[in-house]
Protein backbone atom coordinates (compact mmCIF):
# COMPACT_ATOMS: atom_id res chain seq x y z
CA UNK A 1 0.00 0.00 0.00
CA UNK A 2 1.34 3.46 -0.83
CA UNK A 3 0.21 6.55 1.03
CA UNK A 4 0.33 8.57 -2.20
CA UNK A 5 -2.18 6.33 -3.96
CA UNK A 6 -4.36 6.08 -0.84
CA UNK A 7 -4.47 9.88 -0.66
CA UNK A 8 -5.42 10.09 -4.35
CA UNK A 9 -8.22 7.57 -3.82
CA UNK A 10 -9.55 9.33 -0.71
CA UNK A 11 -9.58 12.70 -2.51
CA UNK A 12 -11.29 10.99 -5.48
CA UNK A 13 -13.93 9.43 -3.21
CA UNK A 14 -14.60 12.75 -1.46
CA UNK A 15 -14.82 14.52 -4.81
CA UNK A 16 -17.34 11.95 -6.06
CA UNK A 17 -19.38 12.22 -2.83
CA UNK A 18 -19.65 15.89 -3.72
CA UNK A 19 -20.33 15.41 -7.46
CA UNK A 20 -22.97 12.77 -6.82
CA UNK A 21 -24.68 15.11 -4.30
CA UNK A 22 -24.19 12.78 -1.31
CA UNK A 23 -22.43 15.67 0.47
CA UNK A 24 -25.36 18.01 -0.18
CA UNK A 25 -27.82 15.46 1.18
CA UNK A 26 -25.78 14.91 4.36
CA UNK A 27 -25.55 18.68 4.95
CA UNK A 28 -29.31 18.95 4.41
CA UNK A 29 -29.91 16.16 6.92
CA UNK A 30 -27.60 17.91 9.42
CA UNK A 31 -29.52 21.18 8.97
CA UNK A 32 -32.88 19.42 9.46
CA UNK A 33 -31.61 17.75 12.64
CA UNK A 34 -30.26 21.09 13.87
CA UNK A 35 -33.63 22.78 13.32
CA UNK A 36 -35.48 19.98 15.13
CA UNK A 37 -33.06 20.08 18.06
CA UNK A 38 -33.15 23.88 18.22
CA UNK A 39 -36.85 23.89 19.05
CA UNK A 40 -36.85 21.28 21.81
CA UNK A 41 -36.30 22.11 25.46
CA UNK A 42 -33.05 21.63 27.35
CA UNK A 43 -34.11 18.48 29.21
CA UNK A 44 -34.90 16.62 26.00
CA UNK A 45 -31.86 18.05 24.21
CA UNK A 46 -29.48 16.25 26.55
CA UNK A 47 -30.90 12.87 25.52
CA UNK A 48 -31.88 13.65 21.93
CA UNK A 49 -28.57 15.15 20.76
CA UNK A 50 -26.56 11.97 21.52
CA UNK A 51 -29.32 10.00 19.78
CA UNK A 52 -29.13 12.20 16.65
CA UNK A 53 -25.34 11.85 16.55
CA UNK A 54 -25.72 8.09 17.03
CA UNK A 55 -28.13 7.80 14.08
CA UNK A 56 -25.87 10.02 11.97
CA UNK A 57 -22.74 7.98 12.72
CA UNK A 58 -24.39 4.58 12.40
CA UNK A 59 -27.39 4.23 10.10
CA UNK A 60 -26.59 7.29 7.97
CA UNK A 61 -23.03 5.98 7.47
CA UNK A 62 -24.45 2.71 6.15
CA UNK A 63 -26.84 4.68 3.94
CA UNK A 64 -24.11 6.91 2.48
CA UNK A 65 -21.68 4.05 1.74
CA UNK A 66 -24.64 2.14 0.27
CA UNK A 67 -25.35 5.01 -2.10
CA UNK A 68 -21.68 5.17 -3.13
CA UNK A 69 -21.58 1.46 -3.97
CA UNK A 70 -24.94 1.81 -5.75
CA UNK A 71 -23.49 4.48 -8.08
CA UNK A 72 -20.46 2.25 -8.66
CA UNK A 73 -22.73 -0.67 -9.50
CA UNK A 74 -24.79 1.19 -12.08
CA UNK A 75 -21.67 2.66 -13.69
CA UNK A 76 -19.50 -0.50 -13.30
CA UNK A 77 -16.58 1.73 -12.39
CA UNK A 78 -15.11 -0.90 -10.06
CA UNK A 79 -14.10 -2.90 -13.18
CA UNK A 80 -11.83 -0.09 -14.34
CA UNK A 81 -10.29 0.33 -10.91
CA UNK A 82 -9.54 -3.42 -10.77
CA UNK A 83 -7.16 -3.10 -13.73
CA UNK A 84 -5.08 -0.27 -12.26
CA UNK A 85 -2.06 -0.64 -9.94
CA UNK A 86 -4.16 0.10 -6.85
CA UNK A 87 -4.69 -2.76 -4.41
CA UNK A 88 -7.99 -3.94 -2.95
CA UNK A 89 -6.94 -2.80 0.51
CA UNK A 90 -6.21 0.70 -0.82
CA UNK A 91 -9.61 0.74 -2.51
CA UNK A 92 -11.59 -0.47 0.50
CA UNK A 93 -9.65 1.65 3.00
CA UNK A 94 -10.10 4.79 0.89
CA UNK A 95 -13.86 4.26 0.93
CA UNK A 96 -13.88 3.75 4.69
CA UNK A 97 -11.73 6.82 5.37
CA UNK A 98 -13.59 9.05 2.88
CA UNK A 99 -16.99 8.07 4.25
CA UNK A 100 -15.76 8.66 7.81
CA UNK A 101 -14.45 12.12 6.91
CA UNK A 102 -17.70 12.92 5.10
CA UNK A 103 -19.86 11.74 7.96
CA UNK A 104 -17.78 13.56 10.57
CA UNK A 105 -18.34 16.74 8.59
CA UNK A 106 -22.13 16.51 8.97
CA UNK A 107 -21.86 15.44 12.64
CA UNK A 108 -19.53 18.39 13.25
CA UNK A 109 -22.08 20.79 11.79
CA UNK A 110 -24.68 19.64 14.33
CA UNK A 111 -22.21 19.72 17.22
CA UNK A 112 -20.80 23.15 16.37
CA UNK A 113 -24.29 24.62 15.95
CA UNK A 114 -25.32 23.40 19.38
CA UNK A 115 -22.11 24.27 21.09
CA UNK A 116 -22.60 27.92 20.19
CA UNK A 117 -26.43 28.18 20.20
CA UNK A 118 -27.44 26.01 23.13
CA UNK A 119 -24.32 26.19 25.25
CA UNK A 120 -23.89 22.45 25.77
CA UNK A 121 -20.90 20.98 27.59
CA UNK A 122 -18.93 18.44 25.66
CA UNK A 123 -15.67 16.55 25.85
CA UNK A 124 -14.75 17.12 22.20
CA UNK A 125 -11.86 14.68 22.23
CA UNK A 126 -13.93 11.76 23.50
CA UNK A 127 -16.96 12.73 21.41
CA UNK A 128 -15.02 12.82 18.13
CA UNK A 129 -13.13 9.68 19.10
CA UNK A 130 -16.47 7.93 19.60
CA UNK A 131 -17.91 9.32 16.38
CA UNK A 132 -14.85 8.29 14.35
CA UNK A 133 -14.85 4.72 15.69
CA UNK A 134 -18.62 4.38 15.26
CA UNK A 135 -18.62 5.79 11.71
CA UNK A 136 -15.73 3.53 10.72
CA UNK A 137 -17.43 0.43 12.14
CA UNK A 138 -20.74 1.13 10.41
CA UNK A 139 -19.07 2.15 7.13
CA UNK A 140 -17.16 -1.15 7.08
CA UNK A 141 -20.36 -3.04 8.00
CA UNK A 142 -22.27 -1.07 5.33
CA UNK A 143 -19.70 -1.99 2.70
CA UNK A 144 -19.99 -5.67 3.58
CA UNK A 145 -23.77 -5.35 3.52
CA UNK A 146 -23.75 -3.69 0.09
CA UNK A 147 -21.94 -6.71 -1.43
CA UNK A 148 -25.16 -8.69 -1.08
CA UNK A 149 -27.69 -6.08 -2.22
CA UNK A 150 -29.09 -6.14 -5.73
CA UNK A 151 -29.91 -2.42 -5.82
CA UNK A 152 -30.35 0.64 -3.65
CA UNK A 153 -33.97 -0.24 -2.82
CA UNK A 154 -32.94 -3.60 -1.39
CA UNK A 155 -30.16 -1.80 0.52
CA UNK A 156 -32.75 0.59 2.02
CA UNK A 157 -35.03 -2.31 2.95
CA UNK A 158 -32.14 -4.09 4.67
CA UNK A 159 -31.19 -0.92 6.56
CA UNK A 160 -34.81 -0.51 7.68
CA UNK A 161 -34.92 -4.10 8.89
CA UNK A 162 -31.62 -3.75 10.74
CA UNK A 163 -32.77 -0.45 12.28
CA UNK A 164 -35.80 -2.22 13.62
CA UNK A 165 -33.73 -5.04 15.08
CA UNK A 166 -30.87 -2.97 16.52
CA UNK A 167 -32.02 0.62 16.98
CA UNK A 168 -35.46 0.13 18.52
CA UNK A 169 -34.23 -1.87 21.58
CA UNK A 170 -31.55 0.78 22.20
CA UNK A 171 -34.13 3.59 22.05
CA UNK A 172 -36.50 1.71 24.33
CA UNK A 173 -33.67 1.13 26.78
CA UNK A 174 -32.57 4.79 26.56
CA UNK A 175 -36.05 6.08 27.41
CA UNK A 176 -36.49 3.52 30.22
CA UNK A 177 -39.24 1.45 28.61
CA UNK A 178 -37.07 -1.68 28.77
CA UNK A 179 -36.56 -1.76 32.51
CA UNK A 180 -35.68 -5.40 33.17
CA UNK A 181 -32.07 -5.62 34.44
CA UNK A 182 -31.18 -8.36 32.00
CA UNK A 183 -31.46 -5.95 29.05
CA UNK A 184 -28.26 -4.29 30.18
CA UNK A 185 -26.39 -7.50 29.33
CA UNK A 186 -28.44 -8.59 26.32
CA UNK A 187 -27.88 -5.24 24.65
CA UNK A 188 -24.12 -5.67 24.92
CA UNK A 189 -24.25 -7.69 21.69
CA UNK A 190 -26.00 -4.83 19.91
CA UNK A 191 -23.57 -2.64 17.89
CA UNK A 192 -25.93 0.34 18.12
CA UNK A 193 -25.87 0.04 21.90
CA UNK A 194 -22.07 -0.14 21.84
CA UNK A 195 -21.97 3.00 19.67
CA UNK A 196 -24.44 4.76 21.98
CA UNK A 197 -22.16 4.12 24.96
CA UNK A 198 -19.13 5.36 23.08
CA UNK A 199 -20.73 8.55 21.74
CA UNK A 200 -22.41 9.19 25.09
CA UNK A 201 -18.92 9.26 26.61
CA UNK A 202 -18.36 12.66 25.02
CA UNK A 203 -21.22 14.32 26.88
CA UNK A 204 -21.21 15.96 30.29
CA UNK A 205 -21.96 13.58 33.12
CA UNK A 206 -20.98 10.43 31.19
CA UNK A 207 -20.15 7.38 33.27
CA UNK A 208 -17.16 5.43 32.04
CA UNK A 209 -18.26 2.04 33.33
CA UNK A 210 -17.68 -1.44 31.83
CA UNK A 211 -20.35 -0.77 29.16
CA UNK A 212 -18.34 2.16 27.84
CA UNK A 213 -15.22 0.03 27.54
CA UNK A 214 -17.13 -2.83 25.92
CA UNK A 215 -18.48 -0.26 23.43
CA UNK A 216 -14.94 0.92 22.80
CA UNK A 217 -13.67 -2.62 22.16
CA UNK A 218 -16.75 -3.50 20.11
CA UNK A 219 -16.36 -0.56 17.74
CA UNK A 220 -12.55 -0.58 17.62
CA UNK A 221 -11.75 -4.27 17.47
CA UNK A 222 -14.99 -4.96 15.59
CA UNK A 223 -13.94 -2.56 12.81
CA UNK A 224 -10.55 -4.23 12.47
CA UNK A 225 -11.91 -7.79 12.51
CA UNK A 226 -14.79 -7.05 10.15
CA UNK A 227 -12.41 -5.31 7.73
CA UNK A 228 -9.79 -8.07 7.85
CA UNK A 229 -12.06 -11.09 7.80
CA UNK A 230 -15.01 -10.03 5.69
CA UNK A 231 -15.04 -6.63 3.99
CA UNK A 232 -11.57 -6.91 2.43
CA UNK A 233 -11.52 -10.63 1.49
CA UNK A 234 -15.02 -10.52 -0.02
CA UNK A 235 -14.29 -7.34 -1.97
CA UNK A 236 -12.60 -9.13 -4.90
CA UNK A 237 -15.61 -11.44 -5.42
CA UNK A 238 -17.97 -8.47 -5.22
CA UNK A 239 -15.87 -6.39 -7.61
CA UNK A 240 -15.63 -9.23 -10.13
CA UNK A 241 -19.41 -9.61 -10.04
CA UNK A 242 -19.69 -5.90 -10.86
CA UNK A 243 -17.54 -6.44 -13.94
CA UNK A 244 -20.22 -8.63 -15.46
CA UNK A 245 -19.16 -12.06 -14.25
Amino acid at each position, binding site marked *: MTMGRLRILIVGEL*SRLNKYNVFSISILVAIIWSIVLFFIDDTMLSSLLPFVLLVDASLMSVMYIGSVTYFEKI*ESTISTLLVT*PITNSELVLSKVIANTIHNLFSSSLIIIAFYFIRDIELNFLLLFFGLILTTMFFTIAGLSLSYYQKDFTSMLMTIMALSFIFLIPTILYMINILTWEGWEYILLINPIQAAEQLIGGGFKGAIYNYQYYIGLIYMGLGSVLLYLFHTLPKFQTYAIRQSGV
Partner: protein
Amino acid sequence: MKPLFEVKDVFYNYPKQDEDVINGISFKIYKGEIFGFLGPSGAGKSTTQKIMIKILEDFRGDIYYDGKSITEFHNEFYEDIGVSFEMPIHFSKMTALENIEFFKQLYQNNADTEALMKRVGLWKDRDKMVGEYSKGMKIRLNIVRALLNSPKMLFLDEPTNGLDPTNAMILKDMIREFKEAGGTVFITSHIMSDIEQLCDRVAFIVHGEIKEIDSPRNLKIKYGKREVTLEYQENNQTQTKHFALENIGQNETFIKLLKEKNIETIHTGETTLEDIFIKVTGESLHDNG
Protein backbone atom coordinates in the same frame (compact mmCIF):
# COMPACT_ATOMS: atom_id res chain seq x y z
CA MET B 1 10.97 -15.65 -30.83
CA LYS B 2 10.04 -15.35 -27.15
CA PRO B 3 6.32 -14.71 -26.62
CA LEU B 4 5.17 -11.75 -24.53
CA PHE B 5 2.14 -13.75 -23.39
CA GLU B 6 1.87 -17.51 -23.26
CA VAL B 7 -1.35 -19.28 -22.35
CA LYS B 8 -0.84 -23.02 -21.72
CA ASP B 9 -3.67 -25.49 -21.34
CA VAL B 10 -5.96 -23.17 -19.40
CA PHE B 11 -9.32 -24.27 -18.01
CA TYR B 12 -11.81 -22.16 -16.12
CA ASN B 13 -15.19 -22.64 -14.53
CA TYR B 14 -17.19 -19.96 -12.79
CA PRO B 15 -17.97 -20.43 -9.09
CA LYS B 16 -21.09 -22.53 -8.51
CA GLN B 17 -20.92 -23.91 -12.07
CA ASP B 18 -19.81 -27.45 -12.78
CA GLU B 19 -18.91 -27.09 -16.44
CA ASP B 20 -15.75 -25.41 -17.66
CA VAL B 21 -16.35 -22.37 -19.84
CA ILE B 22 -12.72 -22.40 -20.96
CA ASN B 23 -11.57 -25.84 -22.04
CA GLY B 24 -7.82 -26.22 -22.27
CA ILE B 25 -6.88 -23.30 -24.50
CA SER B 26 -3.26 -22.66 -25.47
CA PHE B 27 -1.77 -19.83 -27.53
CA LYS B 28 1.14 -17.42 -27.66
CA ILE B 29 1.16 -13.70 -28.33
CA TYR B 30 4.43 -12.28 -29.62
CA LYS B 31 5.76 -8.81 -28.91
CA GLY B 32 4.57 -6.26 -31.45
CA GLU B 33 1.75 -8.49 -32.64
CA ILE B 34 -1.98 -7.84 -32.88
CA PHE B 35 -3.62 -11.07 -31.83
CA GLY B 36 -7.35 -11.52 -32.31
CA PHE B 37 -9.86 -13.73 -30.57
CA LEU B 38 -12.81 -14.33 -32.86
CA GLY B 39 -15.95 -16.06 -31.72
CA PRO B 40 -19.66 -15.65 -31.13
CA SER B 41 -21.10 -14.25 -27.89
CA GLY B 42 -20.65 -16.70 -25.03
CA ALA B 43 -17.69 -18.43 -26.68
CA GLY B 44 -15.30 -17.49 -23.86
CA LYS B 45 -13.57 -14.46 -25.39
CA SER B 46 -14.19 -12.01 -22.53
CA THR B 47 -13.58 -14.71 -19.91
CA THR B 48 -10.18 -15.43 -21.46
CA GLN B 49 -9.37 -11.72 -21.40
CA LYS B 50 -10.44 -11.44 -17.76
CA ILE B 51 -8.17 -14.38 -16.88
CA MET B 52 -5.25 -12.82 -18.75
CA ILE B 53 -5.69 -9.46 -16.99
CA LYS B 54 -5.88 -11.19 -13.59
CA ILE B 55 -9.51 -10.29 -12.81
CA LEU B 56 -10.40 -13.99 -12.70
CA GLU B 57 -7.72 -15.83 -10.76
CA ASP B 58 -8.89 -19.38 -10.06
CA PHE B 59 -7.98 -20.82 -13.46
CA ARG B 60 -6.19 -24.12 -14.08
CA GLY B 61 -3.16 -24.19 -16.34
CA ASP B 62 -0.31 -21.72 -16.86
CA ILE B 63 -0.15 -18.18 -18.13
CA TYR B 64 3.15 -16.36 -18.55
CA TYR B 65 3.72 -12.68 -19.14
CA ASP B 66 7.22 -11.79 -20.27
CA GLY B 67 8.45 -15.23 -19.15
CA LYS B 68 7.01 -15.03 -15.64
CA SER B 69 3.80 -16.62 -14.41
CA ILE B 70 1.07 -14.01 -14.03
CA THR B 71 0.27 -15.47 -10.61
CA GLU B 72 3.66 -14.12 -9.44
CA PHE B 73 2.80 -10.57 -10.46
CA HIS B 74 1.06 -8.21 -8.07
CA ASN B 75 -0.55 -4.96 -9.02
CA GLU B 76 2.59 -3.69 -10.77
CA PHE B 77 1.34 -5.86 -13.66
CA TYR B 78 -1.20 -3.13 -14.40
CA GLU B 79 1.55 -0.57 -14.99
CA ASP B 80 2.35 -2.56 -18.15
CA ILE B 81 -1.11 -3.11 -19.58
CA GLY B 82 -4.06 -1.06 -20.75
CA VAL B 83 -7.58 -2.46 -20.77
CA SER B 84 -10.67 -1.32 -22.61
CA PHE B 85 -13.84 -3.16 -21.63
CA GLU B 86 -16.70 -3.66 -24.04
CA MET B 87 -19.03 -1.38 -22.09
CA PRO B 88 -17.98 2.23 -21.56
CA ILE B 89 -17.00 2.63 -17.90
CA HIS B 90 -16.59 6.11 -16.46
CA PHE B 91 -17.80 8.31 -13.61
CA SER B 92 -20.77 9.89 -15.37
CA LYS B 93 -21.06 12.93 -13.10
CA MET B 94 -17.45 13.91 -13.66
CA THR B 95 -16.11 15.54 -16.80
CA ALA B 96 -14.07 13.53 -19.29
CA LEU B 97 -10.92 15.37 -18.24
CA GLU B 98 -11.62 14.79 -14.53
CA ASN B 99 -12.06 11.07 -15.25
CA ILE B 100 -8.80 10.91 -17.17
CA GLU B 101 -6.87 13.01 -14.63
CA PHE B 102 -8.09 10.80 -11.76
CA PHE B 103 -6.98 7.55 -13.42
CA LYS B 104 -3.72 9.10 -14.63
CA GLN B 105 -2.62 9.74 -11.03
CA LEU B 106 -2.81 6.02 -10.27
CA TYR B 107 0.05 5.13 -12.65
CA GLN B 108 3.78 5.79 -12.62
CA ASN B 109 3.95 6.27 -16.39
CA ASN B 110 1.71 8.75 -18.10
CA ALA B 111 0.99 9.30 -21.77
CA ASP B 112 0.21 12.70 -23.28
CA THR B 113 -3.52 12.52 -22.64
CA GLU B 114 -4.19 15.87 -24.31
CA ALA B 115 -2.76 14.46 -27.55
CA LEU B 116 -4.77 11.25 -27.09
CA MET B 117 -8.00 13.14 -26.50
CA LYS B 118 -7.33 15.32 -29.53
CA ARG B 119 -6.62 12.19 -31.58
CA VAL B 120 -10.04 10.72 -30.76
CA GLY B 121 -11.75 14.11 -31.17
CA LEU B 122 -12.75 14.57 -27.53
CA TRP B 123 -10.51 17.46 -26.48
CA LYS B 124 -13.12 20.11 -27.27
CA ASP B 125 -15.65 18.20 -25.15
CA ARG B 126 -13.22 17.54 -22.28
CA ASP B 127 -15.18 19.66 -19.79
CA LYS B 128 -18.50 17.97 -20.51
CA MET B 129 -19.92 15.50 -17.99
CA VAL B 130 -19.39 11.97 -19.29
CA GLY B 131 -23.09 11.37 -18.64
CA GLU B 132 -23.78 13.82 -21.48
CA TYR B 133 -21.53 11.91 -23.90
CA SER B 134 -22.93 9.71 -26.69
CA LYS B 135 -22.08 6.00 -26.63
CA GLY B 136 -19.49 6.54 -29.36
CA MET B 137 -17.80 9.31 -27.36
CA LYS B 138 -17.73 7.10 -24.26
CA ILE B 139 -16.10 4.27 -26.23
CA ARG B 140 -13.47 6.70 -27.54
CA LEU B 141 -12.85 7.85 -23.96
CA ASN B 142 -12.43 4.17 -23.01
CA ILE B 143 -9.51 3.96 -25.43
CA VAL B 144 -7.90 7.10 -24.02
CA ARG B 145 -8.23 5.59 -20.55
CA ALA B 146 -6.64 2.33 -21.74
CA LEU B 147 -3.69 4.23 -23.23
CA LEU B 148 -3.07 6.82 -20.52
CA ASN B 149 -0.30 4.81 -18.81
CA SER B 150 1.65 4.21 -22.05
CA PRO B 151 1.11 0.44 -21.74
CA LYS B 152 3.27 -2.25 -23.35
CA MET B 153 0.20 -4.32 -24.08
CA LEU B 154 -3.40 -3.40 -24.84
CA PHE B 155 -6.44 -5.59 -24.16
CA LEU B 156 -9.43 -4.52 -26.18
CA ASP B 157 -12.82 -6.16 -25.76
CA GLU B 158 -15.03 -5.55 -28.82
CA PRO B 159 -13.29 -2.22 -29.44
CA THR B 160 -15.41 -0.90 -32.32
CA ASN B 161 -18.78 -2.20 -31.14
CA GLY B 162 -21.19 0.76 -31.22
CA LEU B 163 -18.87 3.07 -33.16
CA ASP B 164 -19.81 4.73 -36.45
CA PRO B 165 -17.54 3.92 -39.44
CA THR B 166 -15.53 7.16 -39.17
CA ASN B 167 -14.77 6.72 -35.47
CA ALA B 168 -14.17 2.99 -35.95
CA MET B 169 -11.55 3.91 -38.56
CA ILE B 170 -9.86 6.41 -36.18
CA LEU B 171 -9.74 3.74 -33.51
CA LYS B 172 -8.31 1.12 -35.85
CA ASP B 173 -5.65 3.61 -36.97
CA MET B 174 -4.76 4.22 -33.31
CA ILE B 175 -4.41 0.47 -32.72
CA ARG B 176 -2.11 0.20 -35.75
CA GLU B 177 -0.05 3.18 -34.56
CA PHE B 178 0.25 1.54 -31.12
CA LYS B 179 1.56 -1.61 -32.78
CA GLU B 180 3.98 0.37 -34.98
CA ALA B 181 5.36 1.99 -31.82
CA GLY B 182 6.22 -1.51 -30.52
CA GLY B 183 3.03 -2.27 -28.61
CA THR B 184 1.28 -5.64 -28.44
CA VAL B 185 -2.49 -5.97 -28.72
CA PHE B 186 -5.03 -8.61 -27.75
CA ILE B 187 -8.44 -8.02 -29.33
CA THR B 188 -11.62 -9.96 -28.75
CA SER B 189 -14.33 -9.41 -31.31
CA HIS B 190 -17.21 -10.92 -33.17
CA ILE B 191 -16.84 -8.30 -35.91
CA MET B 192 -15.07 -9.91 -38.84
CA SER B 193 -13.79 -6.71 -40.44
CA ASP B 194 -11.98 -5.65 -37.22
CA ILE B 195 -10.10 -8.93 -37.08
CA GLU B 196 -9.40 -9.05 -40.80
CA GLN B 197 -8.14 -5.48 -41.00
CA LEU B 198 -6.14 -5.39 -37.78
CA CYS B 199 -4.85 -8.79 -36.71
CA ASP B 200 -1.56 -10.43 -37.55
CA ARG B 201 -2.96 -13.69 -36.21
CA VAL B 202 -6.39 -14.80 -35.17
CA ALA B 203 -7.73 -17.61 -32.98
CA PHE B 204 -11.19 -19.04 -33.59
CA ILE B 205 -12.87 -19.78 -30.26
CA VAL B 206 -16.12 -21.70 -29.78
CA HIS B 207 -17.49 -23.16 -26.52
CA GLY B 208 -14.27 -22.29 -24.73
CA GLU B 209 -12.07 -24.19 -27.20
CA ILE B 210 -9.67 -22.83 -29.77
CA LYS B 211 -10.34 -24.47 -33.13
CA GLU B 212 -7.70 -22.76 -35.25
CA ILE B 213 -4.92 -20.16 -34.97
CA ASP B 214 -3.23 -18.53 -37.94
CA SER B 215 -2.93 -15.28 -39.88
CA PRO B 216 -6.07 -14.20 -41.78
CA ARG B 217 -4.12 -14.60 -45.03
CA ASN B 218 -2.96 -18.15 -44.24
CA LEU B 219 -6.47 -19.11 -43.17
CA LYS B 220 -7.79 -17.90 -46.51
CA ILE B 221 -5.15 -19.86 -48.38
CA LYS B 222 -5.77 -22.95 -46.25
CA TYR B 223 -9.56 -22.94 -46.19
CA GLY B 224 -10.68 -20.46 -48.85
CA LYS B 225 -11.84 -21.43 -52.31
CA ARG B 226 -9.19 -20.66 -54.91
CA GLU B 227 -11.28 -20.06 -58.00
CA VAL B 228 -12.12 -17.62 -60.77
CA THR B 229 -15.72 -16.77 -61.53
CA LEU B 230 -16.64 -15.65 -65.02
CA GLU B 231 -19.89 -13.99 -66.04
CA TYR B 232 -20.54 -13.71 -69.78
CA GLN B 233 -23.31 -13.18 -72.32
CA GLU B 234 -24.74 -16.14 -74.24
CA ASN B 235 -28.10 -16.18 -76.05
CA ASN B 236 -28.95 -12.81 -74.49
CA GLN B 237 -28.58 -14.29 -71.02
CA THR B 238 -25.89 -13.94 -68.37
CA GLN B 239 -24.07 -17.21 -67.77
CA THR B 240 -21.75 -17.95 -64.82
CA LYS B 241 -18.87 -20.41 -64.68
CA HIS B 242 -16.35 -21.19 -61.95
CA PHE B 243 -12.77 -22.36 -62.65
CA ALA B 244 -10.13 -23.64 -60.27
CA LEU B 245 -7.19 -21.21 -59.96
CA GLU B 246 -4.65 -24.05 -60.27
CA ASN B 247 -3.20 -24.10 -63.82
CA ILE B 248 -5.80 -21.59 -64.97
CA GLY B 249 -3.48 -20.65 -67.88
CA GLN B 250 -3.76 -24.16 -69.27
CA ASN B 251 -7.55 -24.41 -68.88
CA GLU B 252 -8.79 -24.48 -72.50
CA THR B 253 -12.47 -23.90 -71.64
CA PHE B 254 -11.56 -20.80 -69.64
CA ILE B 255 -9.31 -19.44 -72.43
CA LYS B 256 -11.92 -20.20 -75.07
CA LEU B 257 -14.59 -18.33 -73.13
CA LEU B 258 -12.27 -15.35 -72.75
CA LYS B 259 -11.61 -15.31 -76.47
CA GLU B 260 -15.09 -15.97 -77.81
CA LYS B 261 -17.61 -14.57 -75.34
CA ASN B 262 -18.64 -11.13 -74.23
CA ILE B 263 -17.25 -11.18 -70.68
CA GLU B 264 -19.31 -9.16 -68.20
CA THR B 265 -17.35 -9.76 -64.98
CA ILE B 266 -14.32 -11.73 -63.92
CA HIS B 267 -13.10 -12.07 -60.37
CA THR B 268 -11.24 -14.44 -58.09
CA GLY B 269 -13.24 -16.21 -55.43
CA GLU B 270 -12.75 -14.36 -52.14
CA THR B 271 -13.80 -16.53 -49.21
CA THR B 272 -14.52 -14.36 -46.21
CA LEU B 273 -13.04 -15.03 -42.78
CA GLU B 274 -16.63 -15.56 -41.61
CA ASP B 275 -17.10 -18.37 -44.16
CA ILE B 276 -13.84 -19.92 -42.95
CA PHE B 277 -14.94 -19.54 -39.33
CA ILE B 278 -18.16 -21.43 -40.07
CA LYS B 279 -16.25 -24.07 -42.04
CA VAL B 280 -13.69 -24.62 -39.26
CA THR B 281 -15.94 -24.38 -36.20
CA GLY B 282 -19.30 -25.45 -37.58
CA GLU B 283 -20.79 -22.39 -35.84
CA SER B 284 -21.99 -19.01 -36.98
CA LEU B 285 -20.55 -15.86 -35.41
CA HIS B 286 -24.04 -14.48 -34.88
CA ASP B 287 -25.97 -17.54 -33.66
CA ASN B 288 -25.77 -16.69 -29.98
CA GLY B 289 -26.41 -12.99 -30.21
